[in-house]
């Protein structure tokens, strides 16, 4: 209940009292540490925590129920909240006084409490309550800098989409209520069996759409790249790190916990299709983005796709009856949830520090920050390596597990698996490669080379608390990368409890080594691997000494094709960097270029050339705009009913009377 204490924050409007701000964030820090401890105790002890909130006349007693799954997500939320709270201490120090820090604190703590509430709710009404309060606080947080119209539009789009999602969730929970007679999650447990198949599929679809909108899967993703950049950076780290995970939590809870064991196969296939399209399209759109935070937002979509690949595979395998495979797939998915929360949080905090220092998000006019902001760039590099799933860090382990889970699919002789699995493997590999390309662009253009604008030149290192927060997260990246045994040993009983079958011990964890007995001693030992990588680099140094003696270095200017001084404009730009990929995937992007060359009187003067590139956002133009056009057109038609003539109003009453007399006899 420390969390609620954390919620009580000074709502002091005065933005100058640093004491109030520090107090607020330290309270948030303490409550999130408490959250971590609570989740760890439950995860390790395995005993669910059951709290009765009180009797209500309509919905029975409101329950908070924290079992393994909610404890895992509680842990993730609190873990990220700890570092973000530390980060916010420094970040909000010199927010422009126009924005009252008091409201930011109030909303920030409310946001944290509601996310925790969503995860520990054991009762439909409490869940919906926390769910909507989360959307409400996020709405106000996104429209925090409400001067820019983009922030307002993003906030509106976000709140509308989540509310539509909640409508689906409402239908789902009420259908479950009609079939089980109560609102508590225990009653919903395995309620799939005593529902007709059609209703069960309806509940599944409502859950997928409702939770999918919050998770940002492909057809419903349009709010994500708008909302995350608009929010203040510490909040957008939390939003894309953990808030979209509440969608995943909901899906896992409904698919595996509520809808019970016998699941039709097409569910798994649907989730896999959504997962694959989300991950590939997510990374492709990310490649074209030059706004750092929008780029990271699109990557959240991609990583949600990878998580859903794990969950979709788990669904498919349970439907086809092989429980152990499903367990590995689920563990892979949940592990990636943890990893993504950490490295996405780290990257967003890094982007926040860059924004904080240079007041510009467009990477085209950054560059050369590695010298001005050494620590931020180092931690951002660790985040980039982790998200591109490169070996020593945590991204690699969870993607390796997902690969193993998918490859083991060949043991099942079902035809759908035979086609679905290879395609998923291919596209997962493609996503991994594209992600690496995207982050080379992001890190390279932002941090390396010469500063491209005055902002970049005058950048300064972020404050110590911000660096400490990022340091903590990168340490976690390394720890979970090097010692996966910790996490997998926690996830294993959780997957066992969810999938019913006792498949613990599927992933042998002898000495920090992940082995999959299913496929005869396939294993990786990340700890040893990391050790080797560090130790082996000594070999080239020693070889260098042996052959070349002491290293003699001389600094000189980079070769500028003969020009006497290297101009920052001569460097590669982000658009240039992603041009080859744009050529390769041109039919997905359908990019349009506009080149304007200004008229120049005499040939001796240089004409001014303006080049503008626009990639078409397919879903917006072909799905959302037509729908809204139709709705507004029909609304405009209906509006003509209120004509303003008194006669027509009387005629309406007369017609209603006549119709009633005819029909209601």
């Amino acid at each position, binding site marked *: 209940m420390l969390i609620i204490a954390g919620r009580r924050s000074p709502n002091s409007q005065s933005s100058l009292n640093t004491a109030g701000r520090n107090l607020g964030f330290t309270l948030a820090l303490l409550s999130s540490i408490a959250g971590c401890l609570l989740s760890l105790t439950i995860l390790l002890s395995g005993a669910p925590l059951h709290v009765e909130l009180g009797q209500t006349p309509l919905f029975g007693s409101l329950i908070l129920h924290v079992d393994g799954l909610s404890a895992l997500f509680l842990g993730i939320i609190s873990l990220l909240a700890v570092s973000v709270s530390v980060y916010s201490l420094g970040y909000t120090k010199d927010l422009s006084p126009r924005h009252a820090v008091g409201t930011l604190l109030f909303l920030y703590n409310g946001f944290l409490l509601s996310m925790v509430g969503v995860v520990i709710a054991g009762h439909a009404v409490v869940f919906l309550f926390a769910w909507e309060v989360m959307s409400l606080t996020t709405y106000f947080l996104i429209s925090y800098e409400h001067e820019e119209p983009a922030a307002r539009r993003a906030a509106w789009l976000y709140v509308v989409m989540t509310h539509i999602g909640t409508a689906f969730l409402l239908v789902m929970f009420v259908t479950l209520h009609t079939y089980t007679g109560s609102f508590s999650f225990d009653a919903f447990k395995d309620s799939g069996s005593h529902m007709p198949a059609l209703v069960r599929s309806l509940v599944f679809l409502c859950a997928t759409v409702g939770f999918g909108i919050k998770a940002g899967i492909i057809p419903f993703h349009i709010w994500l790249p708008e909302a995350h950049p608009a929010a203040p950076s510490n909040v957008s780290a939390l939003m894309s790190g953990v808030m979209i995970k509440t969608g995943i939590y909901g899906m896992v809870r409904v698919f595996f916990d509520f809808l019970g064991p016998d699941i039709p196969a097409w569910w798994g296939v649907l989730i896999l299709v959504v997962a694959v399209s989300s991950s590939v399209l997510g990374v492709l759109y990310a490649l074209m983005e030059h706004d750092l935070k929008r780029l990271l937002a699109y990557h959240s979509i991609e990583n949600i796709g990878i998580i859903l690949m794990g969950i979709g595979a788990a669904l498919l395998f349970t439907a086809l009856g092989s429980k152990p495979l499903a367990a590995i797939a689920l563990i892979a998915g949940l592990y990636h949830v943890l990893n993504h929360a950490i490295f996405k949080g780290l990257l967003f905090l890094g982007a926040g520090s860059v924004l904080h220092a240079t007041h510009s998000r467009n990477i085209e006019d950054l560059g050369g920050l590695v*010298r001005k902001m050494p620590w931020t760039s180092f931690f951002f590099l660790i985040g980039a390596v982790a998200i591109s799933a490169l070996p020593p860090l945590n991204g690699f382990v969870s993607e390796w597990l997902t690969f193993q889970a998918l490859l083991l699919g060949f043991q099942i002789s079902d035809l759908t698996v035979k086609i679905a699995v290879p395609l998923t493997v291919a596209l997962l590999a493609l996503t991994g490669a594209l992600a690496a*390309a995207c982050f*080379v662009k992001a890190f*390279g*253009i932002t941090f390396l080379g010469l500063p491209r604008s005055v902002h970049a030149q005058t950048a300064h290192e972020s404050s110590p608390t911000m660096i400490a927060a990022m340091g903590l997260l990168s340490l976690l990246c390394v720890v979970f990368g090097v010692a996966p045994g910790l996490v997998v040993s926690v996830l294993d009983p959780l997957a066992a409890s969810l999938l019913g079958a006792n498949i613990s011990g599927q992933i042998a964890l002898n000495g920090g080594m992940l082995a999959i007995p299913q496929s005869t001693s396939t294993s990786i030992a990340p700890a040893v691997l990391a050790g080797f*990588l560090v130790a082996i680099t000594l070999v080239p140094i020693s070889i260098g000494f042996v*052959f070349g003696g002491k290293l003699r*270095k001389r600094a000189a*200017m980079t070769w500028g094709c003969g020009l006497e001084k290297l101009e920052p404009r001569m460097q*590669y730009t982000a658009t240039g960097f992603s041009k080859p990929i744009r050529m390769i995937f041109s039919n997905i992007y359908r990019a349009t270029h506009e080149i304007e060359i200004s008229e120049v009187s005499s040939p001796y003067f240089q004409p001014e050339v303006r080049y503008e590139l626009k990639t078409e956002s397919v879903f917006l133009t072909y799905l959302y705009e037509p729908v809204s056009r139709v709705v507004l057109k029909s609304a405009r038609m209906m509006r003509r009913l209120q004509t303003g003539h008194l006669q027509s109003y009387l005629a309406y009453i007369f017609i209603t009377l006549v119709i009633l007399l005819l029909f209601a006899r």
Partner: protein
Amino acid sequence: MNQIVTTIATSLAHLVLVLAIAPLVTGVVRKTKARFQNRRGASVLQPYFDLAKLFTKEVVVSSVASWLFQATPYLVFGSMLVIALLVPTVITPVPLHWVGDIITVIYLFALGRFFIALAGLDTGSAFGGLGSSREMSIASIVEPAMMLAIFTASVTAGSTNLSIVVERLSASPLAMMNPAHLLAFAGLFIVMIAETGRIPVDNPATHLELTMIHEAMILEYSGRYLALIEWASQIKLVVFLALLSNMFFPVGMAATWSPWALTVGVGAFCLKVTVLAVIVAVIESMNAKLRLFRVPELLMVAFILSLLALILYFIIGA
């Protein structure tokens, strides 16, 4: 205790072998290319002398570059060595097989590529950016193709552990002849050409900005750093050839540590690697370099080939 000592000893020996052979293989390739251009060409050992020379030379570091520029050579070389440790060349049961499997190998390649690309961007010169952008876009298709090709082989063996795969395939060489494996081999061959930067995809010997991809990234390196990176790319060539030969024609590999089996293994390995090197050189001299935006079509062919191989294997269920 002695079990650990033996594994360290054997893996070190393994490492030395690969380190030694790498420049030789590049020498063979250059020799055959020269022969095709009916000139005598430098001796096969020329790469050794180049490396030795480079090691002694002074390193010129660009003032624009950051610490990343100077750390990349060591990291790239290190990751190549780790790959060398994992890939079975001479003997099937690689001592450290439990440390990593095929996916680790592929992602270690990606790690190396990631840092070289960043180093290219670090110097702030147009060529570095050009190289990194082309390298990363080609890699974005090559990597999945490589994975699919190798997965076809690993799926037949039932595990992604390299030693197990090679052992299983060497146990039944006839199983190799089914269509899935041939397609996978073709796909992997194209991937090898793209990955090691040979002619149809990228020209290793040129400094003309239109054609160079791999060279552009390491343009700014000099002295010891250049030596390390050159050597790393040579090791990469050897490792790829080893993968190609052992995954698809594992004949003649030593099954046990007996000295006789070892000599046969080393001999067979050298033979296979030289044959493949010659084939690469032949292809290189017969083809002209593809235009940059034709390369993705070639790579798409590789991707489709490997995907077909995997699906074919799944459908037919060899």
